[in-house]
């Protein structure tokens, strides 16, 4: 059981979600984050005062996934989230020791 975390460009979210659905992923969770990285932030101007804003908006996807699907999930995100421009983001895979579906109490594989 793994947790795949991806930081992607927000406008790619729907595409990624649909692609994951297509390869058999039944669930995921998304949050809005502010990313700092190689991609430059932007300037904001208020009454003549300029502010450098380092952060750019990103979407974070968390997918809990069976070991045998991890490769597919990572590949799918990589492929659909890629624009080839700086700021496309990262994918990380973390080990999960236990997993529960709250509704039924099912554990591990069955909880997905």
């Amino acid at each position, binding site marked *: 059981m793994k947790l795949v975390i991806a930081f992607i460009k927000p*406008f790619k979210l*729907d595409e990624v979600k649909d692609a994951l659905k297509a390869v058999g992923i039944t669930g995921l969770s998304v949050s809005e984050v502010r990313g700092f990285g190689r991609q430059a932030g*932007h*300037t*904001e*101007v*208020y009454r003549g005062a*300029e502010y450098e804003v380092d952060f750019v908006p990103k979407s974070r996807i968390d997918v809990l996934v069976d070991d045998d699907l991890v490769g597919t999930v990572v590949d799918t995100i990589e492929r659909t989230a890629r624009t080839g421009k700086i700021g496309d983001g990262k994918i990380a895979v973390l080990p999960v020791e236990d997993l529960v579906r709250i509704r039924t109490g099912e554990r591990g594989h069955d909880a997905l």
Partner: protein
Amino acid sequence: MEINPGDTAWVLVSAALVLFMTPGLALFYGGMVRAKNVLGMLMKNFFTITIVTIIWVLIGYTLAFGKDAWGGLIGNLDFAGLRTVRGDSLFPGTKIPDIVFMAFQMMFAVITPALITGAIAERMKFSAWVVFCMLWSVLVYLPVAHWAFASDGWIFARLGARDFAGGLVVHINAGIAALACVFVLGPRKGFRREAIRPHNLTLTLLGAGILWFGWFGFNAGSALAANRIAGIAFTATHVAAATAAGTWIAMEWWRVGKPTTLGAASGAVAGLVAITPAAGFVSPLAAMAIGAAAGAACFFAVSLKFRFNYDDSLDVVGVHLVGGILGSIMLGVFAERSINPDLLVTSGLMFGGAAFFGKQVVAVLAVLAFSFVVTYILARLVDLTIGLRASEEAETSGLDITLHEERAYVFTE
């Protein structure tokens, strides 16, 4: 003859109300775009006040309300720079100072191009808007205003069609111009593929409330006096708006399954648009009929853009063009001479005035043709020179950050 303070008070208030409509419109539209583009929308609307006001003072008022020049295409330059418009004389046919009439009409000139911003939302450059808006005001708005509003304009004086408060001059004019712009500009990225949802409907409803409030000045103020015609127009305005909101919601409930706040607001605006040309000429029950028709017609009209694939983003065509045409034509049906004997020579179709109906149709067609053609040329011109459209990058990241270097909302500090 003396100034009438009551009439003057009413027209001053009405001018203020009409000015207030432009920020109202900005919010109405601003709530409907995505959060990344809301400031771009507000900016185009607010800055239209600046552009048009400066034009109006220098040459606008005189070109619209000066005596026929250039064979009646436009007014002459008697009032250029407003040097002779200083309240020393009454505006002909009224008991209000000329400068008060000038100020009232200035607000109409301001809001008309602002209406177009709804169609070109989320993708037009601000610089392009500034240039386009200047050209359009002078070359499209002023001629049409002269024809239909000036006492010697051909639509009013020679054709004999009527436009109480701007069905032709404001709504049809801006509505068809919006269509022409959209043709030149092309659709937003993702149009018809992605959900492009309003980002803040509370703003939109607030904007609708301000528009409704301001429209009393727009329509009832067009009586140019605090008299019974103002009362007639006031009532018609309110009744049409309320009824149109009702039919829009009824249609939506029936056809889509759920009544929406955006539907209620859109319906109200559709009713306000449709009653504009007719407000001072029809009975409350006729206003109700016009409102009901507008709510239903515009409800259907706003879905045409998906069918015919033009990205009239916030439905300027569906609401202002369709509503404006409907109202101008229905005025040809419901006008009652007994309601406004000074301005109406005959009644409408329903009361035996077939000729008047025909005149209304001609006026509508004339404005449609003129405005569409000239607007299309202007939009192409601006596109070929400085470019109408923001970069793809700007469209993706949002106009607010890229064009204005501002963010509308920062809730986390």
